[in-house]
């Protein structure tokens, strides 16, 4: 048996260097902590230094290895700099988790301003372009890139409890970039996959539900979209990322892991 199929459940990514964006809150936070629990050294990237530092402290208090990387992924120079610092410290990158994302504006497209459109695309799409651009050359020993799309990259939604077209366009773009990069880098042993969560109980979703004006009603409606009957937890997604980050998935590339409580099966 290979190391990847050892019976030890801990240490599934031992020794790997992971760069996780949006790691200060929600799914990114859960992912950073889970990767560290399983033996990875984790660069905790977030534009909010306070929440990122809390995650670094949490990982270090567990005996894990973490580095603070304060950056807005929409800022190319900032991304280049923090990835350079991680490579200086840990020599390479093995896992890139592109979790940073915005729900953005909840307005029909004919009301959206160009600036609003640009901000969503700058974070959700261009941010992934930036981190991928600078992380790939640091994946000197192969690697795994995990890009956050969404069920709204797969299906449409245009009600109070679903984000509108700009978000959906950004998440569809992520699927396309992931497939293209998967083909481009397969020969270098770098795998690129997307992950498509349903509604997950995170600050981003909470904020989005608040902005509908009736958070409780919106939460109930959002829960009802999932045949399993509720929103998911950040760990539900973090486990999927752990699988894609580990060598257990060494034959998986160019695909999308859907974790949505059955929502898109209907």
């Amino acid at each position, binding site marked *: *048996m*290979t190391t*990847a*199929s*050892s*019976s030890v*459940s801990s240490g599934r990514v031992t020794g790997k260097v992971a760069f996780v964006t949006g790691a200060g809150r929600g799914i990114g936070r859960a992912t950073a902590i889970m990767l560290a629990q399983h033996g990875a050294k984790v660069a905790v990237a977030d534009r909010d230094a306070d929440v990122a530092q809390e995650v670094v402290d949490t990982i270090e208090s567990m005996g894990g290895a973490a580095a603070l990387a304060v950056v807005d992924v929409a800022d190319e120079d900032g991304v280049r700099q923090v990835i350079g610092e991680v490579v200086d410290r840990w020599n390479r990158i093995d896992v890139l988790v592109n979790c940073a994302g915005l729900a953005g504006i909840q307005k029909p497209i004919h009301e959206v301003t160009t600036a609003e459109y640009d901000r969503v695309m700058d974070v959700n799409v261009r941010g992934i372009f930036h981190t991928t651009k600078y992380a790939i050359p640091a994946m000197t020993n192969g690697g795994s890139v995990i890009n956050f799309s969404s069920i709204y990259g797969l299906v449409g939604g245009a009600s109070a409890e679903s984000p509108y077209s700009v978000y959906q366009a950004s998440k569809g773009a992520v699927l396309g970039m992931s*497939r293209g990069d*998967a*083909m481009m880098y*397969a*020969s270098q042993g770098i*795998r690129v996959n997307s992950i498509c969560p*349903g509604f997950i109980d995170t600050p981003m979703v909470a904020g989005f539900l608040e902005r509908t004006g009736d958070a409780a009603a919106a939460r109930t409606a959002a829960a009802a979209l999932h*045949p*399993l*009957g509720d929103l*998911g*937890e950040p760990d*539900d*997604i973090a*486990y*999927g990322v*752990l*699988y894609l980050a580990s060598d*257990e*998935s*060494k*034959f*998986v*590339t*160019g*695909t999308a*892991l*859907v*974790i*949505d*409580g*059955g929502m*898109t*099966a*209907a």
Partner: protein
Amino acid sequence: MGRLQDKVAIVTGGSGGIGKATARRFLEEGAKVTIVDLSRESLEQTAAELAGLGDLLTVEADVTQEDQTKNYVDKTVEAFGTVDVLFNNAGIESKIQPLVEVTVEDFERVQSVNVTGVFLGLKHVLPILTAKRSGSVINMSSNGGLDGTLYLGPYITSKHAVSGMTKTAALEVAAYNVRVNSVHPCPVNTRMMREIESGFSPEDSVAAEKDFASRIPLGRYAEPDDVANVVVFLASDESTFLTGAQYRIDGGMGATP
């Protein structure tokens, strides 16, 4: 503490390449496992290979037969007390020929194992899972359950059927917190692919293998463990928000035209 500690799992086609690799991973992660296969001899050989890894039961069954399906479920409950996981894995390939040359008999034989077998497994295991409001079923489809390919008509048909049955089952049992997902490997390094290679290229099956592998972006077939690893994830409580989904293990084939 294994990732499947104390869960009871059934693996059909448990003596084949993927079935055996998965049974091994299940045992390593702490599950009690029933392996189901057609021949007593192959079951005994597999049991010998897996000896010492944990609690293992072997049950001879033709998955196309309802009474034999009921029997492997009953025997499992008798031995281990319940069922938590079903890996509906048993399947056969079809002859390499255009659809118009396929006999009705051959067509129905493939549907019978690959579709009826999966249906019967669901029919007899889901009531146990819904009654206890937990459990996971993983159905073996194929990249050929999502995409088409030449000259494997009955097989491709059957694997698409599994995709549809999986989604329906997932929706029907979601309210009971029971999950049903399908897995979709591209060619895996097993007996089945040796048959398909010989079927495509009787004089030079190695050339057929090279040709298939060259169409996979990662440049090789899947190994049984590549499939087993995702089945462990889907069987475990790590994936409790995951149902009705289709997981590819295909070296990037799904991203190609």
